[in-house]
């Protein structure tokens, strides 16, 4: 009697895309059936204000840049729930944020002054300095380079017995870099208390998500690193908060890293030098408008009588004043001067650098 051996089939197939993103708030602002917000009323209002702040700053920044008063920067527009929902899952006193460059509200939540952020994008070297006790790394322009660094930071904190967690941001584009894979893999082997927050905003400058990876979801890569992965509606503040809180809790408990993919959408240009109309389909852009993350939270808050016109006006006025104040402050900052070019290359100024510095000062003075 002969037994027939079944033909070989691959054991691991491209996953079928059935995974639905975790949602809590529906686009109309109503809670999903049986869902309970993980933020209390005051926290929810605060988070909403931070999202509004972010949107207002994007608008101000664009307008200042067009007037030549601000540098090239990348707005958060459309991704406020993804950034804020994740950030408010942290305890700024002990946890860290490792940014890429599109996460202003997370940095503000950690305590970074807006002025500091603005200085960076004004091309001022002093922008790189976070005040003592503000647990953030400087903006990262080299995509994905921050990811292994965040793993090391988290590993270091754990080795020192701190119950701290590192939240590191990247995008769908950066997740194609080798550093992404090395970081996720290392984090898994080390059990580092790090949360990889992969903001899938649909676009890496002009490259759509569909061309970035053949994977149906980016979160589905997580099992390949031996770490948990989650897919979440990135335009749903409460969903992001719940999922990231869960990941932060596990990291804090010593259960290692997580990968969270937030499905969101970049509402417009990559940065102030870009023109997304060249490649972003208008109908796709329009299809995301009803899913605006801020409108969703506002609808929710209003439906629960936690937000009214009066409060709205007061919040927006407060935001406007704070941004104007920061603009005035940074515009009053004196140019950095020659010293900043040389001061921090290393611990000591080498004799050769000292000579170059003296030459430059002399040549500036003779002009």
């Amino acid at each position, binding site marked *: 009697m002969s037994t027939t051996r079944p033909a070989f089939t691959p054991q691991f197939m491209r996953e079928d895309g059935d995974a639905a993103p975790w949602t809590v708030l529906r686009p109309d602002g109503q809670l999903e059936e049986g869902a309970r917000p993980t933020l209390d009323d005051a926290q929810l209002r605060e988070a909403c204000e931070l999202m509004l702040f972010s949107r207002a700053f994007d608008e101000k920044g664009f307008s200042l840049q067009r007037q030549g008063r601000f*540098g*090239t920067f990348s707005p958060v527009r459309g991704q406020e729930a993804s950034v804020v929902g994740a950030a408010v899952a942290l305890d700024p006193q002990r946890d860290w944020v490792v940014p890429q*460059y599109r996460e202003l509200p997370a940095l503000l939540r950690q305590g970074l002054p807006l002025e500091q952020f603005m200085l*960076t*994008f*004004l*091309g*001022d*070297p002093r*922008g*790189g300095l976070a005040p003592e006790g503000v647990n953030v790394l400087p903006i990262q*322009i*080299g*995509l994905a380079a921050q990811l292994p660094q965040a793993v090391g930071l988290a590993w270091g904190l754990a080795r020192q017995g701190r119950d701290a967690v590192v939240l590191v941001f990247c995008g769908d*584009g*950066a997740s*194609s*870099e*080798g*550093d992404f894979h090395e970081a996720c893999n290392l984090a898994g082997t080390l059990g580092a208390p790090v949360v990889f927050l992969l903001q899938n905003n649909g676009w*890496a*400058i*002009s*490259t759509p998500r569909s*061309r*970035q*990876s053949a994977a149906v979801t980016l979160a589905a890569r997580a099992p390949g690193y031996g770490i948990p992965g989650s897919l979440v509606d990135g335009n749903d503040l409460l969903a992001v908060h719940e999922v990231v809180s869960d990941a932060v809790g596990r990291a804090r408990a010593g259960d290692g890293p997580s990968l969270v993919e937030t499905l969101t959408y970049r509402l417009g240009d990559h940065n102030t*030098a870009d023109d997304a109309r*060249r*490649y972003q389909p208008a109908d796709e852009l329009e299809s995301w408008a009803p899913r605006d993350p801020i409108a969703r939270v506002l609808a929710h808050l209003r439906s629960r009588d936690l937000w009214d016109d009066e409060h709205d006006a007061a919040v927006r006025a407060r935001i406007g004043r704070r941004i104007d104040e920061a603009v005035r402050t940074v515009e009053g900052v004196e*140019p*950095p001067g*020659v010293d*900043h*070019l*040389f001061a921090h*290359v290393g611990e000591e100024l*080498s004799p*050769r*650098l000292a000579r*170059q*510095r003296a030459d*430059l000062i002399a*040549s*500036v003075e003779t*002009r």
Partner: protein
Amino acid sequence: MTTETLTMGKALNLGLRRAMDDDPKVVLMGEDIGRLGGVFRVTDGLQKDFGEARVVDTPLAEAGIVGTAVGLALRGYRPVCEIQFDGFVFPAVNQIVTQVAKISARSQGRMRMPVVIRIPFGGGIGAVEHHSESPEAYFAHTPGLKVVSVSNPVDAYWGIQQAIAAPDPVVFLEPKRRYWEKAEVDLDAIPEPLFRSRVVRRGDDVTVLAYGPMVATALQAAAAAAEEGRSLEVVDLRTLSPLDLDPVVDSVRRTGRCVVVHEAQVSHGLGAEIAARLTEQCFHSLEAPVLRAGGYDVPYPPARNEEEYLPDLDRVLDAVDRAMGF
């Protein structure tokens, strides 16, 4: 004769187009080079005309872009990789330095690497970090790579075609702050060879060497010096590896003085190699040491310190003064 007034960016675009017309094995690959036409629009319209199989929008993965180009080259393609900004080439350096540069030697010449790696380089556009680097010395230090830098639309138009046609890998450095500068380009001319330097202004007192973005600065310095009665000879090096110093040696034997200008940090830069070679070849003609005017030995600074970092006309003239003062 067909002559057009072109910016450097447009000249590169037309050069790429002509290379693709001439050879169906030419494939362009890089981030945002297709529909967007590249962040500097150098590949504008090429995907529309040549299709997505020949102008490939890649994932955001520089090591992957260059590594994939190696494999394509092994099948007879001539890949032209665009690295979006100089500071983003570093993830690809493993592939460039340990692989692209060595495959010919490793395979005893059986495997050629006709790969072009285009990199917009240098500063002066007020950009954020990693968008203003001058990484040429890393590549010039690597045997097996050819490194060229164009300074004007004419060389850009011909140079990119010649680099693509070359049998060996070429790191092709495009001075991004000169992308918008215009010149007349004769599209039917017989081009100068790619790996040759060229005297671009005659003079008798000091030889000034420059390449890429600094050629224009050196020419400005020569014009300013002329008003003070000083005659500078300016050489556009054009090729950084291999260096073509024959015209330079002739020049320095006449002038006895030489200043090398580059935007890159001075220490361990191209200027050091050039100074050493000129000392060997022109020792008895030199009236002064070969001097260097370049960037300071600091990380390329944020925009507000950019002007202080960048070598300008005054820094070149200071070096000329010092050379004359010996």
